[in-house]
Each structure stands twice: as C-alpha cells, then as structure tokens.
C-alpha cells in the first residue's frame, strides 16, 4: 500500500523485538546458567554470559540423576500418547462423519465435552480409577445386585482388580481420553469434497478400502499436525505423571526435572546442573518444533474451525 506506515512499522518491529526477547530471554539465561559452574553461580547468581561447563553439567545430569531413564519414559509416553491419539481419533472421527449412525451426534458431543474439563481438574478421581480400572465394573455389579447373586452362587462376589498406576499404560491412557483429535479430524473430513466419497463408492470401495485407500493418505497432514501437538503436550505433561508414577524410574523427565530442586534440603540448589537438565529435557520438543513448526501451526489453526 502506498501510504506511509513507517511509524507503525517501527512500533511493530520494537514490539516484535520485545516479544522475541521475552521468549528467548529465559531460554538464553537457562543456557547461560547451564554452562557455568556451580561455584560461579554461588558467587554471581544468574549467569548473563555463557561459560564452559555446559557439557560437564550435562554429564552430571546423566551421571547423577534419573533424567536419562526419565527421558526414555517421556519419549515412550509422548510417543504413545501421540500415536494412540492419532489412531483412535482418526477412527472415531471416521465413524462419526462417514457412517449413518443415529447417535453420531451424541457420541461426538460426549467426546467433545472432554475438552471442557482437563485432566488436571479431575486428577484425584482419575487417579482413583487408574488404581483399579475395573472399579466401575465392580461398582456396577454391586449396584445392580448382580454381585449378591454371584456371591450366592460362587461363594464370593466378583472383585476385579487391575491397577495401571506406575505403568506406562497408566501414564498414557488418560491422556488419550481426549476429544481434540476427533474434533480436528472431523473438521478435516468435513472439508473434503463429498463427491470424493461418492466417487469411491462408485468405484466399488467399501468402508475399509475407503479408509485406507482414500482417507488415510489424504489425512497425512492432519496426522502430522495432531501428532506433533499431542507429542508436545504428552511430553510437557506434569500433574498426571507426577501422581501416576510413584518411582523415579517410571517418572517422566519433566517431573524429574522439577524434583531436582530440593524441597527442604541443606544445600543451595545446583542451578547450573538443573538448568543443564532443563536444556536436555526441552531439547527434543524444541527440535521437534523447529523441524515441524509448519505442521504445528497448521494443527493450531485447524482447531479454530
């Protein structure tokens, strides 16, 4: 446009500089501190410039903390959350959009409602369920009186027990029980031309063929977006892994990192090492963002519609 927008452009540049500094500042300080020695930190506090101890600090993280094994847990958790969310959401959205089922709307509403109450709010009772995933079944048997019947016949009521706490399954499953992915795929399916479906039917494709031959290849981008999104959110989860895993070896890296700052110990926290751990813990998701930023943005934008 011809008009002179210099003042605005200068203001915009300044704002962006401020924004970038705000975002990068803490990250830089983290890196700088992570590369200084503990003694340096004791003397000077926060490090404004990088030092040389980054790798020795990192080496200590690997030698002295549970972070390495916890990174493996994080990787497993985040990857499983992402892959299962992608698959289950894809299948459920497929059922909702492409099949004549009278209760499709109800099913979708039930799935979508999960967006409203995040896991953090219902953590106490979710924990309870995770401690015995059969508890609803038991309760049902009790309430319906079936158990009395069973007790009369077999001598004892049915009490099924299966705790998923402190297992990878337990870390993952409640995070997958979420509707965002279904929503995302549903939106995507709705943007596909209906004629594509009809064409496939004319060509003789049934539900399974249509799913694999047409829908799946076309949904690749959505898959990537959702995968990145859920991977990141799986990696960065805090409260759930905090409560669901009770041994350090089952905990995720983010929880392990937070635990590095001692509650009430005599020592001054070893911030250089903690910051080195922060760097290590964040490196995978950050690399992921750097590489797949495009998909992430697509994923975020898609959720709008």
């Amino acid at each position, binding site marked *: 446009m011809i008009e002179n927008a210099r003042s605005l452009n200068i203001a915009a540049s300044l704002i962006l500089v401020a924004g970038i500094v705000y975002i990068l500042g803490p990250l830089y300080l983290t890196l700088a501190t992570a590369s200084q020695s503990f003694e340096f930190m004791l003397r000077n506090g926060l490090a404004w410039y990088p030092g040389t101890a980054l790798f020795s600090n990192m080496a200590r993280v690997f030698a002295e903390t549970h972070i390495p094994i916890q990174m493996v847990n994080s990787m497993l958790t985040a990857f499983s959350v992402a892959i299962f969310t992608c698959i289950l959401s894809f299948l459920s959205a497929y059922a909702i959009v492409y099949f004549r089922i009278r209760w499709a709307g109800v099913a979708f509403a039930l799935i979508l409602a999960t967006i409203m109450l995040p896991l953090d709010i219902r953590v106490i009772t979710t924990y309870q369920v995770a401690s*015995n995933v059969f508890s609803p079944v038991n309760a049902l048997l009790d309430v319906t009186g079936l158990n009395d019947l069973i007790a009369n016949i077999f001598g004892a009521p049915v009490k099924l027990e299966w705790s998923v706490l402190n297992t990878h399954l337990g870390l993952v499953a409640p995070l997958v029980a979420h509707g965002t992915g279904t929503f995302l795929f549903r939106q995507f399916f709705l943007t596909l031309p209906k004629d594509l479906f009809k064409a496939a039917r004319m060509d003789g494709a049934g539900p399974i063929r249509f799913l694999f031959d047409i829908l799946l290849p076309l949904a690749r981008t959505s898959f990537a977006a959702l995968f990145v999104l859920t991977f990141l959110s799986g990696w960065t989860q805090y409260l759930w892994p905090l409560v669901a895993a009770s041994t*350090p070896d089952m905990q995720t890296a983010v929880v392990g990192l937070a635990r590095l700052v001692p509650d009430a110990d005599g020592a001054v926290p070893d911030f250089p090492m903690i910051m080195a751990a922060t760097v290590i813990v964040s490196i995978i998701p950050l690399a992921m963002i750097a590489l797949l930023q495009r998909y992430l943005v697509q994923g975020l934008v898609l959720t709008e519609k």
Partner: protein
Amino acid sequence: ANIEFWYGNTGVAETAIQAECAAFNSAQSAHHITCVGQGSYEVSMQKAIAAFRAKNHPVLIQFFDAGTLDLMLSDAVEPVEDVLPDVKWDNYIAGARAYYETSGGKLFAQPYNASTLLFYTNKTELEKAGVMKTPTTWEEIIAAAGKLKASGHACPFVTDGDTWRVLEQFSARHGLPIASKHNGYDGLDAEYVFNTTFVAKHLQNLVDWRKEGLVRLGTDTKAGNFTAAFNTGECAMMENSSGSYTASVKAFDGKYEMSVGMAPMYEGHERHNTFVGGASIYVMKGHSKAEIEGAKAFLDFVRDPKQQMSFTSATGYVPVTNDVMEAIAKSGEANPPKYATAAVGIDSMNQPRTPDTRGIRLGFYVQFRQVFMEETQKAFAGEQTMQVALDNAKKRGDELLRRFEQTYKGVTLR
C-alpha cells in the same frame, strides 16, 4: 524375597539410606531390598496412601512423625511389636517410644532416622563479632544477634518458621501443650490450644526480631533456604534438625567452626524434653509371609548398633536404641565431630517429661502443619498480626480435628 522400601529423605540422608540398603543386600542373600526415594516425607506419605488404595504399596514405608495418628487409625499397618514380638523394644530410647507407641504401650513403628531440634552456630562468625560464649537462651541469642548486626553481619539468626521447629519443638521443651487432651493422646476430641500459650509470645518475638534485622526467614536469604544460608556462612545461627548436621559440617569444610547444642530456652522456663523427629519404618498390611520375612530381616539389620553408628555418623541422625551410646563409647570415637549430635540429641530428648511432651497424636496433622505455615507466613509478611494468625490456625486446625473425628467415627484410639 524381593521387597521394596519407600522413604522421603534427600541429600546426605538419602545417600546414607541407599548405602544401608546396599549393605543389607550384600550382607545376606535371602532377601533383596529396593529402596525408593520419594523426594520428601510429605510426598512419600501421599504416594503411600495412593499406593495402598491401589493395592500397590511396598511392604516397608518410612513415615514421619506428623503422620503417626493417621497411620495408627488407618488399619493399613501391622504394629512392629506384633510383627517382631521377640525384639527387646524397651531398649528403644524413651523419647521415641513415647511418640510411636499406643496408649497400651505397644510400639507401632520402628524408629529409624530419629532426630531432634538442635541449635547451631557459626562460631567463627560469632567470635568475629565479639560473641565468645555460645548462646543457650533466646535472650542471649538476641544479644548476640544485636552484636552481629552491629558488626555489619547481614543475617544473625535464620529460621524457616517451620511448624516442627517453631511450634512443636518449642512447645515441648518449654512444657507447653499444643492441643488439649495432652496433644490428643487422650482422645480424638482434642482441640488446639497453642494460640493461648507462651509460644504465641515467641512467634510474635520472631516477627519483631525479623523487623529489627536480627532474624531472617529462609526466603529472605540469598540462598533462598535457611539451612543453605547457614551452611554457606551467610547466616550465623539457626535451629535445625540433628539430621542436617553432617551436611552442615561438610559445607563448613574447615572454612568455619561450628557448634551444636540443645535448642534455646527462654530464661525463667524449666527445660523439658524435645520431641523425637525424623521418621520411623512401618510394616504395611497385605503382603505375603515371605515379604514380611524380608521386612523383618531389614528391620533387624538397621537396628544393629553398628548400622546405627554408621548411619549416625553419616547424617547426624540420633541413635534410637540405648545400647548404641555404649557402643560409640567403646569404639573410642566418642568425641565430635563424628557423633556430635548423638549425645546432645538424646540428652535433649531425655529431659523431664510431662503428659504434654510425650508427642503429638492429632489427626490430619500433616495438613495442619501446612495451615500453620500458611497463617504464620502471612503474619511474617505483615498481612496480619501473629495472634490473628495463630487464632486462625487454631480455628482451621480444629476443623481438621473435627473432620478427622467424624471420618473415624466409631474407631477408638488405641
């Protein structure tokens, strides 16, 4: 059998516990123990409760003093006296027994890393400021603090205002009740009374002294944590658990000279015993015979005087059986610094006892500790007066007690 043991300590103590576990595993081959650190006493207890509900709990768990009543009524633990009927339980030091035994005199848990509150000074700094005699009373501490301040010392005395330190241990050694019914020993219907005792005055003093720059809170310090502030030399005096002794010694590392003594009294008050602190080991219900056998073996192992001695020397925690002092004496290493806390700690716990200084038997007490901290922190921040803070804490604490009472309706104190 393979058994698991959960504990809450970190740092020096954690290292010592892990060493002890390793020693146990290498000392015999019948059992194997895995010791899992949970990060803190509170978290350890949370996890234990959660795990127990999920039937996922280990056979041995370390619980801290504050959880005693919750555990006694939980129906989740087997009293150690029942598990190990043949052990000579009266060999355990009186202070620990008083805290962990039922009204019938049955020990519920095996005392493990016992501590009590001690007074630490940085002798070097004190002497630099011209304080030659280590203070033993609050009056002396404040006088010394004044001198330190005058000589330009930024942080004469440091505390974190923790409930255990400023309320429980203070009340005990001054012979003051914390709650009615002898701190709950005589029934679930106890009520808090600390807001009416001398402890209120002491806490008000702390607020005033902080304003004068004589006392600092851990958050006021550069280190951000009161023990660290003392250990780095930033602060000259503190009252802290014997369990942190070794860490402090290591931190001083010849740079400063340190003294430990009994926690300070106010002049004109008769000294009573301090409570046992730290934690003890519980045997959880719901495990196989073999696992119980393993648990028993471990409990026997850690009771061994030799083990206790090395644990004490590694951490500063106090021995829990009476025969250990003799063993230390025999070892010829009776002098500080290695066992410095043992004698003074046991001495402190063996001061004259009243029915109000047996221990604390109050429900949801862990939560109460938080309530107390929350309210007094507001007083330190100047948002309310200390008296209001204590009144609030009492009110909220009583609500906890009433809820506990209701929750365990029909269950009687043993």
